[in-house]
Structures are given as structure tokens and as C-alpha cells.
């Protein structure tokens, strides 16, 4: 073609090729200007009636004069080949500019306004684009939008349908009945209905979504999957930095029913301009006055969770992570970090009633919130008002949430939170509303509880599975308290526990108890790790026996009950309260299998030189497999796991922020609506890869029930 003359244009060079045809740079020898010349592909050649329509549409489009529309100068035919002479636009396609990561929302808004303006002009002239997509939108070096190919798609649709960034669709055939590009097609087109200007507004919604996120709202591996997604699925929500107003506009453009969308491009343009202006000039409530209840996280990795997967929920001082594996627990995908920079002191997994809810507490400059996710971290609640708050008459403000504990099996909507300053909160409606447990808050001892190094916190909550009104809490520094009447009254249960930081060695209360654990089959037996001291009680905390027999230090934080053996408990001692690191620089877990009569070190696979580590009170968890898997994290950001009850250990990962809490879950039912986004993978050596899974595996800590259905 180079050198040929079509009409009065001489072809200079080829500059592009698409499904519709080949585009050349050409020179108009009459008007002495550079132009673009599109020659319709021979294999896209039209029958007579189609060619007449193409000519008609192109001529109509050539009447469009708008700064954001690529002007068509001439349409012609030369020896059976159609050609279109148009304005030569130099720049980058929007598809190229937003690939992978998406544009800044302000850029997306700026371009969106211009695209909507172009559509508005065309629609006013009765011209529908029919193939609006990011590949058809050019951004010049000056930031000016030029929309290409107005009105042409319908006539040459047979070959253009699979153009676009989703190249994998190219092998699919037999699509001649519709025109356009599949990922941008409106549902009504796929249903065989006639496209109108609202179909262009759907495509505009797809373009805006892609522009600010770098991905398409409806994806799939085949044309069928894409079509199905367009017809039935709701696109993944766009959260910050995409402004809620922009997301609302995109959602309305992507309504499945044309009648529910904007009806005119001018409306979209006005809405985009309103979001573009960053300030408001009134105090009247905006469209988002109640603020989003849910924050969707796109800047983090997510894990794809399937039935039978095993999860570790890891709370750190810089956010939360979800680690996914299967029953082998040899390879891990990492989701997160969620809540960048926030302290996450507590997490829990709630599968009661068939749900898959992850709870997390977050603490930052902006306060402390209890949040939940029903899609394994992809989106989290972000309530405008903090759900856990002290009543005004207390004069106390929430500092942190240290513990989230699920209620009893027969009360699936009940949860408890232990907080700082030391108090217990309870919900009976699955977290919608929380109330302060007054019986404990009003206890006469409370004013004399003292903060420990980490604050004055109620960090442990134990429910007695045999006595439905009995519950224990542990407070640093306050000691152990028990209620036998569902929280109305509480008694200190600290007889026999030394208080090394008080003048009286065995006071009624005030001990700095770091952790208590209970075995569900022997709930009258409790084990306790204190600030200096290891204890066991065989009578519901009425008195405590010293069991620090053969441990290198009876100071420590982490303590874990074996999920099946009531004689077996794990601890990770640290040297002293002055030097809160593992003894002699050796990282060792200690285990008793005789209720504290003796302890054995478990160290195979754990660093034994210069390992000055600290494992905090909730940074250890046990799964429900047989043999039991045990996992713990360190303040230095390492995570270790054992699949054989602690006999041997593997490092799961390192380089995390300080680990504060770990919980685990086994996903029993197949979740829906989850898609992966290239999770990071960490490989764990497989020398202990055996996994026996005979047990009816469930989340092991805390307990759960499948007998009741949640109200939510």
C-alpha cells in the first residue's frame, strides 16, 4: 500500500492494525495535511447493503465536529476496498495508559468527562458508537481525549468483536450476529436486543472501570464466561483511592437494565464533573453522608479460598494477613496486608451458621474499630461509627480491642470482645450492636487494676462449655475473674498466683496474668501463664498450683492448650521481664503432656543460635488436624509451623511486621464469588508433608457451631 494513492491521499506508512482494518499515515495532496487512512480489511469486506450502511454511517459521523471526536474527513471506495480518511491523532491509547494498574482517579475523571462529552454530541446527532473501548480512545500529549470510530462498528462487526486487551478471546468464532467488543458489550446486546445510546453508556462504565483499576469489570477465560459475567455478575467494587462518587457513577452505568442507567451521556458528564470538583459549598448531606460501610481493598493481594482450605489469620503491628494453604500445609499464599499500618491485635474466624466471616480489630491514629469480612479479606466493613464504644457515663474511651471470642454454639449471634482499658463487651446480634458488660465494669476492684507494659487490657475470654453461665476473663494487671451467672457478677479467682510486682505476694487480685487456657473436655481445669509463674487449677480457678517444673523461665506470654489432650499444654518462655527474649538466644517451645508435672523442649527446626525472639500471648494457635498443627509468630516477623504436634518445625515465612495474633480456620463449605489476584506464594520444605485428616476439622480456636443459623 505504501506509495499508493486513495482518493487524493498518498499512503506514507502503516501505523496500526485492528479487527476492522489497517491504518496508515497518509498525506492529503489537495489540502496538504497529514491524515490517517483506514482501509477496511478484505476479510471484513461487506456485502452490498452493509457497504451502503457503512458509507451512510461514516458520512453521518463525518458531520460530527467535536474536540474529543476524531474527525472523519472522507469515505470512499477504491477497487472494491473501502477506506476512511480521518484526522491523524497522535498519542497513546487509553488501553495502553491504564494497563495493569489503572490511572489516578483524577486522570480517569478528566478523561471520563471528555469521553462523555463526545458521546453526548454524537447521541444528540443520533449516532451511536457501538464499539466504545479503551483501545478506541486516544489521549494526546496535551491530555486531550479523541474517541475514534464513531458509528462504524455495526457495519464491520464480524471481525472486531474480540479486539481489545483481552486477547485470549481471539480464538472464539461464530459471533457475527453482534458487533462491538465483547468485554464492553451491554447485556441487552448479548440478549439480542437493539443497541441504543444507553449501550454506549454501559461501555463508558466499562471504560471508566478499566481506566481507574487497570482491569475489566467482567472477565473470563472464554467468550461464554465473559458473556455470562456481563449478564449476571456484579463487578468487584472499587474502593479508595477511587472516590465513592466515581464508583457510584460507574455502577449506574453498569446497571444490567438500560432503564436503570443514566439515560443521556450529558448526565454522566455532569456527574463526573461534580465528583471532579474536590470541594463542596454547603453542609447539606452529600450522597454518601452515611459513608461506605464497606471498604474494598484493591492495592493488596487477595487469596482464592476453596472448600477444604486451611487459613492462618495473622494480626501484626502493621496490618493483617491471610495465609492460605490446603491440608498439606506445605505451600502458602499470602493475602494482605489489610489495614496498612494499623495494629491488629485480634482476629477470629466465624463459620457458625454456614458463614465465612473473618473478624479483625484495627487500631490507628483514627481510633479502634472492629471490622469483618465475608469474602476472605477482599472487602471489609468500615463502619462510620465505632461499634464498640464506652457509654458516656463511664468517662472512658476505647483504646484497643485485644480479644475477639465467639459465643457458645447455641448462641451463634453472640460474640465477646476484651478491650483496653480493661472491659468486656458483648453482642447478641452478630456484631450490629455491642454493650458493655456492666457487671465486670462496675466491679469494685476495677479502679485498682493497674496497666501493665502493654496497657490495662482484658486480653483473654474463656467460655465454659459445660456451664452456660460460666465465663472467665484475664486482665493485665488485674488477674482472673469468673462469672457463674452470665456476666452479672464476677469474683476474683487468683488464690495461689504470686504477684511479683506488688508488696503483698498473694493478693486477692492485681496479678499480671498473661494468658489462661482451658481444655473443652475438662473445663474445670485451667492453665495459666503469669508475669513470672506457671499454674494449673483443677477446680475452676478456685486455687492454683505452681507447675513451673523444669522450664528455663516461668516468665512468658504465649500459652496454648492441645485441642484433644487435656494434659497437654504448650508455652514459649522468655528470659525475664527485663529481657523479654527467648532464653539463651534459643527459640524453643515447651510442652507438658502430664498437666505440668514436667516440660520438654521442642526445638527441631527452630533457630538455636542468636534467636532472641518474643512470642506474644495470642501469637500461637493450634489447628484441628490429627496430628495437631501448631503455628506461632514472633515479634521479629517470623512465622513457624509444625505439622506433628511440635516435634519438628518449619519456618513458614519471615519479614513480616511484628506478629501480635494468629488464628486458624479450615474452610468447610465452598465460598463463592472469589477470584485471585496473583497472590504471593511461599514454599515450605515438604519433608514433613504427611497429613492425616481423619478428624471432622473445624476452626479450633475458638469454638464454633453449625447447629444454628446466624440472623445476618
Amino acid at each position, binding site marked *: 500500500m505504501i506509495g499508493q494513492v486513495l482518493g487524493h491521499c498518498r499512503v506514507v506508512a502503516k501505523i496500526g492494525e485492528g479487527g476492522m482494518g489497517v491504518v496508515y499515515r497518509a498525506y492529503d495532496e489537495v489540502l496538504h495535511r497529514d491524515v490517517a487512512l483506514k482501509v477496511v480489511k478484505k476479510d471484513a469486506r461487506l456485502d452490498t447493503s452493509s457497504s451502503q450502511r457503512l458509507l451512510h454511517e461514516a458520512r453521518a459521523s463525518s458531520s460530527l465536529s467535536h474536540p474529543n471526536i476524531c474527525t472523519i474527513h472522507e469515505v470512499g471506495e477504491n477497487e472494491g476496498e473501502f477506506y476512511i480518511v480521518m484526522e491523524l491523532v497522535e498519542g497513546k491509547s487509553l488501553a495502553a495508559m491504564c494497563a495493569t494498574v489503572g490511572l489516578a482517579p483524577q486522570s480517569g475523571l478528566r478523561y471520563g468527562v471528555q469521553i462523555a462529552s463526545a458521546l453526548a454530541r454524537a447521541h444528540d446527532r443520533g449516532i451511536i458508537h457501538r464499539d466504545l473501548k479503551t483501545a478506541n480512545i486516544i489521549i494526546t500529549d496535551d491530555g486531550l481525549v479523541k474517541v475514534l470510530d464513531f458509528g462504524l462498528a455495526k457495519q464491520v462487526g464480524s471481525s472486531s468483536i474480540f479486539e481489545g486487551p483481552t486477547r485470549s478471546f481471539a480464538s472464539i468464532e461464530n459471533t457475527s450476529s453482534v458487533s462491538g467488543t465483547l468485554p464492553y458489550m451491554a447485556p441487552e446486546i448479548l440478549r439480542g436486543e437493539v443497541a441504543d445510546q444507553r449501550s454506549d453508556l454501559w461501555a463508558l462504565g466499562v471504560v471508566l472501570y478499566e481506566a481507574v483499576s487497570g482491569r475489566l469489570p467482567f472477565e473470563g477465560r472464554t467468550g461464554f464466561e465473559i458473556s455470562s459475567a456481563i449478564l449476571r455478575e456484579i463487578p468487584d467494587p472499587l474502593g479508595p483511592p477511587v472516590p465513592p462518587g466515581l464508583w457510584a457513577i460507574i455502577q449506574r452505568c453498569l446497571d444490567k437494565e438500560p432503564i436503570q442507567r443514566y439515560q443521556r451521556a450529558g448526565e454522566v458528564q455532569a456527574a463526573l464533573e461534580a465528583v471532579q470538583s474536590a470541594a463542596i459549598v454547603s453542609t447539606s448531606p452529600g450522597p454518601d453522608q452515611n*459513608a461506605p460501610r464497606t471498604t474494598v481493598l484493591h492495592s493488596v493481594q487477595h487469596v482464592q479460598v476453596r472448600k477444604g482450605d486451611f487459613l492462618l489469620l495473622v494480626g501484626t503491628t502493621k496490618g493483617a494477613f491471610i495465609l492460605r494453604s490446603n491440608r498439606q500445609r506445605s505451600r502458602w499464599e499470602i493475602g494482605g496486608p489489610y489495614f496498612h499500618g494499623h495494629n491488629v491485635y485480634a482476629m477470629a474466624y466465624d463459620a457458625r451458621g454456614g458463614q465465612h466471616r473473618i473478624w479483625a480489630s484495627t487500631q490507628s491514629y483514627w481510633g479502634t474499630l472492629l471490622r469483618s469480612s465475608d469474602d476472605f479479606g477482599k472487602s471489609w466493613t468500615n463502619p462510620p461509627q465505632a461499634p464498640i464504644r*464506652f457509654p458516656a457515663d463511664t468517662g472512658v474511651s476505647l483504646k484497643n480491642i485485644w480479644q475477639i471470642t465467639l459465643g457458645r454454639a447455641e448462641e451463634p449471634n453472640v460474640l465477646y470482645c476484651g478491650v483496653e482499658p480493661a472491659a468486656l463487651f458483648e453482642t447478641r446480634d452478630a456484631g450490629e450492636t455491642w454493650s458493655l458488660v456492666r457487671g465486670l465494669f462496675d466491679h469494685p476492684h476495677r479502679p485498682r487494676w493497674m496497666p501493665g507494659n502493654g496497657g490495662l487490657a482484658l486480653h483473654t475470654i474463656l467460655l465454659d462449655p459445660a456451664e452456660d453461665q460460666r465465663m472467665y476473663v484475664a486482665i493485665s494487671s488485674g488477674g482472673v475473674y469468673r462469672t457463674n451467672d452470665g456476666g452479672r457478677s464476677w469474683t476474683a479467682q487468683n488464690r495461689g498466683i504470686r504477684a511479683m510486682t506488688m508488696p503483698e505476694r498473694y493478693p486477692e487480685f492485681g496479678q499480671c496474668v498473661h494468658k489462661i487456657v482451658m481444655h473443652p473436655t475438662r473445663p474445670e481445669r485451667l492453665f495459666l501463664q503469669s508475669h513470672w509463674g506457671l499454674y494449673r487449677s483443677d477446680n475452676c480457678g478456685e486455687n492454683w498450683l505452681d507447675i513451673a517444673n523444669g522450664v528455663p523461665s516461668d516468665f512468658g506470654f504465649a500459652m496454648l492448650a492441645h485441642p484433644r489432650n487435656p494434659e497437654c499444654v504448650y508455652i514459649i518462655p522468655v528470659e525475664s521481664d527485663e529481657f523479654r527474649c527467648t532464653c539463651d538466644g534459643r527459640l524453643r517451645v515447651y510442652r507438658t503432656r502430664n498437666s505440668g508435672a514436667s516440660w520438654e523442649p521442642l526445638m527441631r527446626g527452630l533457630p538455636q543460635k542468636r534467636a532472641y525472639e518474643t512470642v506474644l500471648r495470642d501469637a500461637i494457635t493450634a489447628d484441628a488436624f490429627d496430628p495437631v498443627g501448631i503455628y506461632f509468630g514472633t515479634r521479629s516477623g517470623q512465622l513457624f509451623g509444625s505439622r506433628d504436634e511440635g516435634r519438628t518445625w518449619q519456618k513458614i515465612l519471615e519479614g513480616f511486621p511484628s506478629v501480635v495474633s494468629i488464628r486458624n480456620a479450615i474452610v468447610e463449605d465452598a465460598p463463592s464469588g472469589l477470584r485471585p489476584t496473583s497472590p504471593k506464594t511461599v514454599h515450605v520444605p515438604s519433608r514433613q508433608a504427611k497429613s492425616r485428616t481423619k478428624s471432622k476439622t473445624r476452626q479450633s480456636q475458638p469454638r464454633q457451631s453449625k447447629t444454628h443459623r446466624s440472623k445476618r
Partner: protein
Amino acid sequence: MPVTFHIPGALREFTAGHSRVEIEQSPATLADALSILWTSYPGVRDRIATEQGQVREHINIFIGDEHMRYTGGLASPVSAGSQISIVPAVSGG
């Protein structure tokens, strides 16, 4: 002239994405201005203040260039055209 709040990025999801919020009422004090702000945008309130109504420890509020701490706290006078900035403190590790 309206009183203008400058909203930090972390709170904009609670102000419909706005980085500035102008209020046309004539608040006399910072407490009045904040009250008007979170009447319109209630999600902002709990991020700035505790449930007992105190500004959070690591949140700084400036009226013009002056920290509220030196102008009377929540009772600091606010006048037409005041620019109020909400800024998280530098702290932590």
C-alpha cells in the same frame, strides 16, 4: 466567607471523596465547626474524636497555622474564612 475544613486522605472516604469541605454556617468555636462537619459526614467524627468527645491523641487540628492546643482547644474561636486542617501526628515506628 465560609469556614473550610481540609480533610486528610485517610478520611475522604467519609466525605464523599472531598479534600475540602466548606461550611456556610457561622460557627463560633472549633467545637461548633466540628459538630457541623460531622452532621454532614458522620463517619469523620469517630476518626477524629473519642466516644467521650476528646480529640484523639495523635490527631492535630490547626486553625490557620496555629495548633488548637495553643488557641483554646475545642473552644478555640473560629471566624469567617477560617481554614481548619486535620492532620495525623508524626509518631510511631
